[in-house]
């Protein structure tokens, strides 16, 4: 499996919701070779990140677009639909980070479970799109979720396609922990064997010692770094320069965000092996 050195950052500046500023931030993120950009973070979410990642989809080329979703102010049916659409529009570059943000304990976990069950209600090969026979889809591949959690009851199926990624890349943040054991990425303040995700990224600043990070990466304790940005245009080039050697020595794979970063769909989270396939029309 691909083992790239992953570069991640978060922007919580309210100006990210202003188009002129957002355009410059996204260009800087792509220019820096950032793998993941979190829109908002625990303690800083002055916008609806799900809306901003939609705008960012056609305004960015490569960076993974991670929406910070508050369990206290969202519903899994809406979230599942919004992120499915963003994943198609971004060509498989979508992620999400669910934070409690004041919600009752267990709500965030319930949101993850409910949204996953909705995405899994659509098979990878549901669409047929055959104009000649008039068959648009294979109904046997569509299932009602009948999800029942402590906070959310969602019948499904959802009126949104299974995402290209199967499920968006799920990011955990140890600043706002949730009890999920099969996430894709964990943002950690110190390397731990029990972060709850396929890969851990160490939270760093521009003062972090690169040698320390390189040693942790070489030992397999972390898979890259994450930085919370306060001045994105100034900090992004510096972040990229600081870790340029690690990134160059450990490139990502080809394809969508999961393929590039080496993040298979969690078998515990999905009853489907793949993301959605869109048939080509002659």
């Amino acid at each position, binding site marked *: 499996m691909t083992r790239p050195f992953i570069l991640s950052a978060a922007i919580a500046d*309210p100006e990210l919701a*202003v188009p002129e500023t957002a355009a410059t931030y996204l260009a800087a993120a792509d220019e820096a070779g950032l793998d993941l950009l979190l829109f908002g973070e625990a303690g800083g979410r002055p*916008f*609806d990140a799900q809306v901003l990642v939609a705008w960012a*989809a056609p305004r960015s080329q490569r960076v993974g677009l991670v929406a910070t979703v508050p369990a206290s102010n969202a519903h899994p*049916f809406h979230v599942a639909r919004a992120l499915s*659409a963003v994943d198609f529009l971004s*060509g498989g570059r979508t992620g999400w980070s669910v934070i409690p943000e004041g919600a009752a304990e267990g709500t965030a976990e319930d949101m993850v479970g409910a949204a996953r069950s909705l995405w899994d209600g659509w098979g990878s090969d549901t669409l047929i799109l055959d104009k000649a026979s008039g068959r648009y889809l294979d109904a046997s591949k*569509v299932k009602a979720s009948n999800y029942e959690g402590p906070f959310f009851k969602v019948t499904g199926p959802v009126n949104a396609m299974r995402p290209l990624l199967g499920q968006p890349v799920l990011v955990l943040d140890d600043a706002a922990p949730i009890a999920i054991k099969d996430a894709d990425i964990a943002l950690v303040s110190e390397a731990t064997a029990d972060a709850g995700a396929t890969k851990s990224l160490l939270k760093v600043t521009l003062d972090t010692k690169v040698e320390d990070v390189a040693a942790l990466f070489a030992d397999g304790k972390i898979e890259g770094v994450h930085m919370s940005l306060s001045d994105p245009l100034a900090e992004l080039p510096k972040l990229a320069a600081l870790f340029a050697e690690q990134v160059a020595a450990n490139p990502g794979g080809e394809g969508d965000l999961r393929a590039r970063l080496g993040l298979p769909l969690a078998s515990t989270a999905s009853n489907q092996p793949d993301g959605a396939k869109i048939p080509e029309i002659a």
Partner: protein
Amino acid sequence: MSKQIHLWAFLQGIGFYPTGWMHERARPEGVFSMDYYSYVARLAEKGRFDAIVFGDQLQSRGAGGRTPERMAMPTLDPMTLLTAMAAVTDHVGLVATISTTFNTPEMLAERFGTMERITGGRAGWNIVTSVHPDTAGNFGLDEMPPKETRYSNAADVVDKACELWAAMDRAGPHLNQGRPVLVQAGQSPAGREFAARTAEAIFCPAPSIEAGIDFRNDMRSRISGVGRNPDGTRVMPGLSCVLGGTEAEARANHKAIMDMASVELAIEYLSESLCCDLTSFDPNAKLPVEAILEKTLLPTADVGRMVTPAGEKGTSLRDFAMNFMLNPRGHNVFIGTPEQMADMMIEWRDAGACDGFTLQPSYMPGGLEDFVEGVIPILQQKGRYRTEYPGTTLRSTLGLPAYERTEA
């Protein structure tokens, strides 16, 4: 100056006709790609449309628990699509449909407030209360709240959302329009009353010029009745079309759309419309009125009015379903040349039947291309349609009075 025509593009899914996705100039695979939405958004902006509008539902199609196989679905989340379309355009407005029944004021105010900011003031909110019985289960309910409850709740949600937007605007970054333009599509007396108090634009069906005049007059009088200025609300009936270089060509193009229809598709479409699965019935037998009334999840009185007359005549399921799908009720469908269509639109506008139209292309993107290339230049030459946008916000494009900011 002659009365100007407003135009919205209603671009849900793959077109007005259920058969539309099979048309040779339709791109059903496109509805899953940004390239398609970039193309369509820029085409709408080239056509100087006021806005692109997406309807919405909060349930998947699946009457009687059976997912249809021949209908173009699922569609993607409209607010996401519209926000992405804003990222590749500069002027065209973006009207998203969001339910007041299944969003809290805090949720929808944050979503729309963010959309309003990132689109630079081009957002509109089509306020709906959700009606489909299958929606309830997706939000933990056993059944839908009754209509009266939904409408009184909608009024509260709109008021609260407006307060939240005012607070967002004061806190900054500034909202260019103050808040999204408020749009409504209610037809019932309760819906019209709600629209009269709230809406700055109204989307409605009007099958004839007379129906349009009646509706617009009724709405203007209701709006005056609640102390608002009726000139502050645009009435935008739906309009679909099939065009051709000559009338004969247009009719042939229309026939080509009709000829793509299969009985299987028609019965799936009818099943969805009646909320009961009819695919297991013999299409050549009489319309199974009793079974429909027993199984439907919709109010049986409404369904009875639709099916009982055909049942009494002994119409077959096949004939009823084909007629139901191919003769869309409610909306005006124009078949003819671009010149004739422009004349019809001007006639409606001058007669007071509308302030403009909500165009529903028969298939996508071909139907929109034909309209933008054929009809828009004629309306412009006749001085009845803008050649440039007057500003950058949806409010300015609609010619609505500026939003009045109030102190906290």
